[in-house]
C-alpha cells in the first residue's frame, strides 16, 4: 500500500470522527443556571463521600453510573436554542449538581435514551418528526407525563416469564427501572427547595418570628415543633399554634419515607460501630425526636444554604462548607481516604490513557512497520508504546485492587481489563522470545479492542463496577486464585484465536506464500497460546470446582458457567490431541484455534445471558449484540480461511521458496 493511500484513508477517518451527531437543543425558558459550574467546585464535590448501594463512594461515581444508566453516554451534551453554536458538555458531576440544585432545568435535559421508536409509541409519547438517528433522548418532564402508561405496560411485561418477554417488553421494564432510579435522585432534595409557611405566634416564635421558614430551620427546632404539635388543640386555627399540626404531620410523613433508592448523605455521628449512613428522611425522624446531632445540623444548614443561594458564589461557598462538614466526620470514621483514592482513580482513568498513549499509537506504528519493514526504529517504538499501554493498564488494575482492597476481578467489567492485560503481556513475551513481529502486531489490537469493549460495557451496563460483593463471593483467597487463573485462560484463548485467525487470513490471501518459516512460526505461536490457555483453563476450572465444594458441598454441578469453562478445556485438549495424532495440521489447527475463541466468548459472556444457574447476571441486549457480533466476525474469518485454503491448495506451489527467504532474513535482524 502506498503511503499516499494510507494518509488519505487516515484523513477520511479523521473527517468522519469530526462529524459528530447534532446535539439536542433546549429552550431558553428552561435556563436557570446562567454560568457554568466552577471547575474547582466540581472537582471538589466529585470527591464528596456518600453512601449508596451498600458502600461509601464519591459523588462522582454515583453521578457517573446514574448518567450511564439513564443516558447511555459518559457526558450530557446540549445547546441552548438561542446560542446554538455553543455546545455545552456536562460531566456527570455537573449534571448531578444540576439535578439537585437546578431541578427544573435538569428536568428538560434530553436524558433517557430510547433506542426503539416503538417504545415511544407504547407509552404514548409522540414522535418528534421522522426518525433521524438510531436513538432518541427524552426528558424527565416528558417521560413523567406518560409515567402512568409506562407503569401499566411495564406491569404487563413484568408479569410474564423472563424468557417470554419480547424485546420491546424488556425495554419497557428497563425504562421503568431507569425512571425510578432517576426519580429517586431528582426528588431527593425536594424538601430543601420549598419554603414553609409558619402561622401561629408560638410557632413563629420558634423561628424568631419568621413567617416563612426553610426546611433546615424547621428541623433545627424539630423537637420543639413536635412538642408544640402535641400540646396544640386539634382545630389548627389556634392563633398561637397555627399550622404546626399540618407541618408536623408533613414531617412525620417524610420520616416514613423509603430509604433504599436514595443516597445517604449524612455519616453517622458518635456511634462508630454502625456502618449505615443517614438519609434525609432518617435525619427528619431523628430531628423530630430531638436527637439531631450538631454536626448533622451544620451539614443540613449548609446544604439548605446551597439550595437557597442567590448566586453561584454563595452556592459554591455553601457547598464547600457542606463538603467539609461531611469529610470531617468521614475522616474520623476512616472512610474518606478510600473515597478520595477512588475519585482520583476515575479522574486519572489510566485504562483510557492506555488506549491513547499506548495501544492506538502502537497500532499505527505497527501498520507503518509492515509498510516499511526495514525501519527498525518503528518496530522498537511500537514495542515501547505497547509496553507503555500495558503499564498503564496494569496500573489501572492495581489501583482498582487498592481502592477495593480486593483481588483484581470481582465483576464482569474487571474481566475486560484483566484479560486485556494478560493478553498483551503474553503477546509481548512471545515477541521477546521470537522477535517475529507477529505477536507485536497482534498485541495492540487485542489490548485496544478489549479496553474499548470494556468501556462500552461500563456505560451500557450502567452499574457500579465496584459494588460490594455477595456473601458467597466474599473470599479473597478464591478470588485471587480461581478467578484470576481462569480469566488468564480466557486471555490465552482469545490470543490463540487472534493468532490463528491471522494465519488463516494470511494464508487465504496468499501473503508471504513461500515463506514456510514465517507461517510455521505463526502456527507455533498459536500452539503456544493454546498450551498456555489449556494450563490455566484446566487448573482454573478445577479450582472453581474446589471452591464450589467448599461453598456448596458439590465439586461439579453442571452449572452453565462451569460448563462453559469445561467447553474451553475440552476444545483445547481435543485440539492438542488431534494435532498429536495427525488429525489436523496447520490449517486445521488454526481453524480450530479460531473456533476456540468463540467457545471462550460463549463461556465468558453468553452463559450469563442464559439467565439460569448460579452465575446468572441478567439479560442485556447490548451484551447479546456484542457477543453475537463477535461470533459473526469470527465465523466470517473462519469461512474466509476455509475458502482461501481450498483455493490455495488447488493452486500449484510457487517456485524457489529459498529465494524469497533472503530479503526477509535481513528484516529479521534483532531489533535490540
Amino acid at each position, binding site marked *: 500500500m502506498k503511503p499516499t493511500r494510507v494518509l488519505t484513508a487516515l484523513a477520511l477517518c479523521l473527517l468522519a470522527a469530526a462529524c459528530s451527531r447534532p446535539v439536542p437543543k433546549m429552550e431558553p425558558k428552561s435556563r436557570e443556571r446562567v454560568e457554568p459550574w466552577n471547575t474547582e467546585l466540581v472537582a471538589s464535590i466529585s470527591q464528596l463521600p456518600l453512601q449508596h*448501594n451498600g458502600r461509601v463512594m464519591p459523588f462522582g461515581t454515583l453521578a457517573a453510573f446514574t448518567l450511564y444508566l439513564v443516558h447511555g453516554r459518559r457526558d450530557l451534551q446540549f445547546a441552548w436554542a438561542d446560542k446554538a453554536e455553543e455546545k455545552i458538555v456536562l460531566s456527570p458531576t455537573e449534571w448531578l449538581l444540576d439535578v439537585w440544585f437546578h431541578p427544573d432545568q435538569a428536568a428538560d435535559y434530553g436524558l433517557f435514551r430510547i433506542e426503539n421508536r416503538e417504545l415511544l409509541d407504547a407509552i404514548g409519547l409522540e414522535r418528534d418528526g421522522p426518525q433521524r438517528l438510531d436513538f432518541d433522548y427524552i426528558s424527565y418532564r416528558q417521560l413523567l407525563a406518560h409515567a402512568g402508561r409506562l407503569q401499566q405496560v411495564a406491569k404487563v411485561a413484568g408479569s410474564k416469564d423472563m424468557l417470554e418477554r419480547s424485546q420491546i417488553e424488556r425495554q419497557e421494564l428497563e425504562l421503568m427501572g431507569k425512571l425510578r432510579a432517576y426519580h429517586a435522585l431528582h426528588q431527593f432534595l425536594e424538601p430543601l427547595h420549598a419554603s414553609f409557611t409558619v402561622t401561629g405566634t408560638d410557632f413563629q416564635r420558634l423561628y424568631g418570628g419568621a413567617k416563612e421558614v426553610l426546611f433546615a430551620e424547621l428541623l433545627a427546632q424539630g423537637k420543639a415543633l413536635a412538642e408544640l404539635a402535641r400540646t396544640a388543640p386539634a382545630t389548627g386555627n389556634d392563633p398561637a399554634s397555627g399550622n404546626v399540626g399540618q407541618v408536623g404531620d408533613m414531617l412525620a410523613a417524610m420520616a416514613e419515607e423509603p430509604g433504599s433508592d436514595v443516597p445517604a448523605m449524612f455519616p453517622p455521628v458518635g456511634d462508630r460501630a454502625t456502618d*449505615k449512613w443517614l438519609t434525609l428522611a432518617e435525619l427528619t425522624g431523628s430531628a423530630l425526636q430531638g436527637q439531631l446531632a450538631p454536626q448533622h445540623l451544620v451539614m443540613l444548614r449548609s446544604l439548605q444554604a446551597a439550595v437557597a443561594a442567590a448566586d453561584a458564589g454563595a452556592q459554591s461557598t455553601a457547598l464547600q462548607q457542606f463538603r467539609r462538614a461531611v469529610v470531617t466526620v468521614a475522616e474520623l470514621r476512616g472512610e474518606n481516604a478510600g473515597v478520595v483514592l477512588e475519585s482520583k482513580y476515575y479522574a486519572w482513568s489510566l485504562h483510557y490513557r492506555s488506549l491513547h498513549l499506548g495501544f492506538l499509537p502502537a497500532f499505527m506504528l505497527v501498520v507503518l512497520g509492515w509498510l516499511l519493514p526495514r525501519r527498525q526504529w518503528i518496530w522498537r517504538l511500537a514495542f515501547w508504546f505497547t509496553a507503555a499501554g500495558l503499564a498503564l493498564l496494569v496500573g489501572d488494575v492495581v489501583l482498582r485492587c487498592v481502592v477495593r482492597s480486593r483481588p483484581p476481578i470481582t465483576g464482569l467489567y474487571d474481566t475486560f481489563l484483566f484479560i486485556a492485560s494478560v493478553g498483551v503481556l503474553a503477546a509481548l513475551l512471545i515477541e521477546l522470545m521470537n522477535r517475529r513481529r507477529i505477536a507485536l502486531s497482534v498485541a495492540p489490537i487485542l489490548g485496544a479492542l478489549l479496553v474499548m469493549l470494556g468501556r462500552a460495557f461500563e456505560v451500557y451496563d450502567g452499574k457500579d463496577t465496584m459494588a460490594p460483593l455477595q456473601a458467597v463471593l466474599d473470599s479473597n483467597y478464591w478470588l485471587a486464585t480461581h478467578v484470576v487463573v481462569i480469566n488468564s485462560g480466557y486471555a490465552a484463548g482469545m490470543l490463540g484465536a487472534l493468532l490463528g485467525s491471522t494465519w488463516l487470513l494470511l494464508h487465504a490471501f496468499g501473503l508471504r506464500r513461500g515463506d514456510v518459516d514465517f507461517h510455521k512460526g505463526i502456527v*507455533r505461536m498459536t500452539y*503456544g497460546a493454546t498450551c498456555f490457555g489449556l494450563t490455566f483453563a484446566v487448573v482454573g476450572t478445577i479450582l472453581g470446582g474446589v471452591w464450589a*465444594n467448599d461453598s456448596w458441598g458439590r*465439586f461439579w454441578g*453442571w452449572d452453565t458457567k462451569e460448563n462453559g469453562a469445561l467447553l474451553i478445556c475440552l476444545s483445547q485438549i481435543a485440539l492438542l490431541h488431534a494435532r498429536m495424532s495427525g488429525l489436523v495440521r496447520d490449517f486445521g489447527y488454526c481453524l480450530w484455534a479460531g473456533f476456540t475463541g468463540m467457545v471462550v466468548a460463549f463461556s465468558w459472556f453468553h452463559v450469563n445471558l442464559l439467565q439460569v444457574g448460579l452465575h446468572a447476571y441478567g439479560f442485556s441486549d447490548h451484551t447479546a449484540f456484542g457477543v453475537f457480533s463477535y461470533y459473526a466476525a469470527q465465523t466470517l474469518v473462519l469461512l474466509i480461511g476455509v475458502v482461501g485454503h481450498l483455493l490455495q491448495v488447488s493452486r500449484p506451489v510457487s517456485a524457489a521458496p529459498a529465494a524469497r527467504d533472503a530479503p526477509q532474513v535481513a528484516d529479521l535482524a534483532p531489533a535490540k
Partner: protein
Amino acid sequence: MTAGTAPPSVQPASSPQSLPSVPSWPLWLARELVGLFGSMRLTVVLLGCLFVLTFIGTVGQVQRGIYEVQKEIFEGWWFWWGWLPVPGAFPVMALLFVNLVVGGLLRMRWQLRNSGILIVHLGISLLLLAGFVKLHFSVSGNLALFEGRANSLFVSFHEWELVLLQQDGDTVRERTLPAESFAAAASDGPVHIDTGSLPFQLVVQGWLENCRPLPKGPLVQAQTPVIDGVYVEVEPLRREREQNVAGCYIDVVDQTTGQLRSAILWGAERRPFDDRRFPFTFTAGGQRYGLDLRRVVWDLPFNVRLDKFQKQDHPGTTNPRDYSSWVTVREPTGDRQVHIFMNAPLRKDGYVIYQANWGPQDGSGPPMYSVFEVARNPSDVWPKFACYVIAFGLIVHFGRKLYRYIHGEQERRARTEAIA
C-alpha cells in the same frame, strides 16, 4: 540390506497380520481392544462428544431446569435428542477413563520426556474417579435449625422414600424403601410392594411428583380419587426440583382380616418449625404401624446445636454481606464450638456441613433459622489433590516445551544473524 543375502520369503498379500508363529485369538482380541481403546483418535472423538453433550446440556437448562438436565444428559446412559438416540455423558466419560488409562498411561512410554503428560493423565484419571465416586457413593441434603435447637440428621433435596415405622416406648424401628423403585411404575398402574413376612400387603396406587391434598367440598370436581373427603390436587412441576412435594395413594390390606384401607401419603416438611413427622397409622396383626412418605433422611453420627445465627447486610441494602452460624458439636471428649460460615464448612467424621442459607425469608422473623447443607462424599478432597497434580504435570510438560522453543528461536536468530 547387505548384498548376498537371500530376499525374505514373500508374505501372501492378502494376509494383513504378521503374528508370531503361535496365533491365539485371545491375544489378538486383547491387542485389538488395546489398540481400539488406547487410540488417540478415539480421545478426540470422545472429547468432541462430551463437548456436544455439555453444550446441549447448558442450553437445555434454560427451559428444563438443571436437575432434569443433569439426570438425563449428564448422569444417564442415553437419551433422545429429537429422533436420534444419543449417549449420555456418563458412558462417554467412562469410555474416556478407559481410553485415558489404556492409551494415556499404559501404552505410553514411561520416559522422562513424557513425565509431564503422565502426571497430567494420572491427575485427570483421579479426577474422573472422584466424579464417579461422588455420583454413586455420596449423599447430600440439608439441615435447618432455629437458634437453641439441635439435631443429628439431614434431609435430601430431591429424593423421596417410603418408611414403615413402629414405636415401642422410647425406641423407633423403621424400614425404608426409596421411592425411585416404584415411583415411575406407579404412574402407570398399581405397584405391589414385597412386604415379606409382615401381616399386610401394600400396593402403591399412584404417585404424583408435585401435589397438594385438599378437602373435597360438595361442589368441587376432583381429578384424583377421594379418600375420606380428601383428594390430591396435581400441581405443575417447578423448575427448581426441591420445591416439589410428592404424594402417593397407598392401599394397605390386612392379610388376616382382608380389610383394605386406602390412604393418601404426602411428603410435606414442617421442619424447622416442627420436627415431627405424622405417619399414617394402621394396625395389623395386633401391632401398630406407621407409613410415611418423606424426603430421604440420613443420620449424622454426631449432634449439632445452633447457638447463634447472624446475618449482616451491606448497609442500606438487603444484600447479605455475611451470614454465619455458631454451632456446638457434641463429642465424646466434650462439646466443641465451631463457627460455620460461607466458604468455611465444618468437616467431621466424613461429613461436611456448609452454611447454605437462612430463613424465614419473608420477613416474619426473628427468630431466624440457619440452613446448612450436609454432604458425605468419600472423594471430597480428591479433586483438590488432582488439581495440584495436574497443575504440576502441565507446568512440567509445557515448561519443557517452552524452554525448547525459546532455545530454538534463539538459535534461529543466531543463524540468521550469522548469515546477515
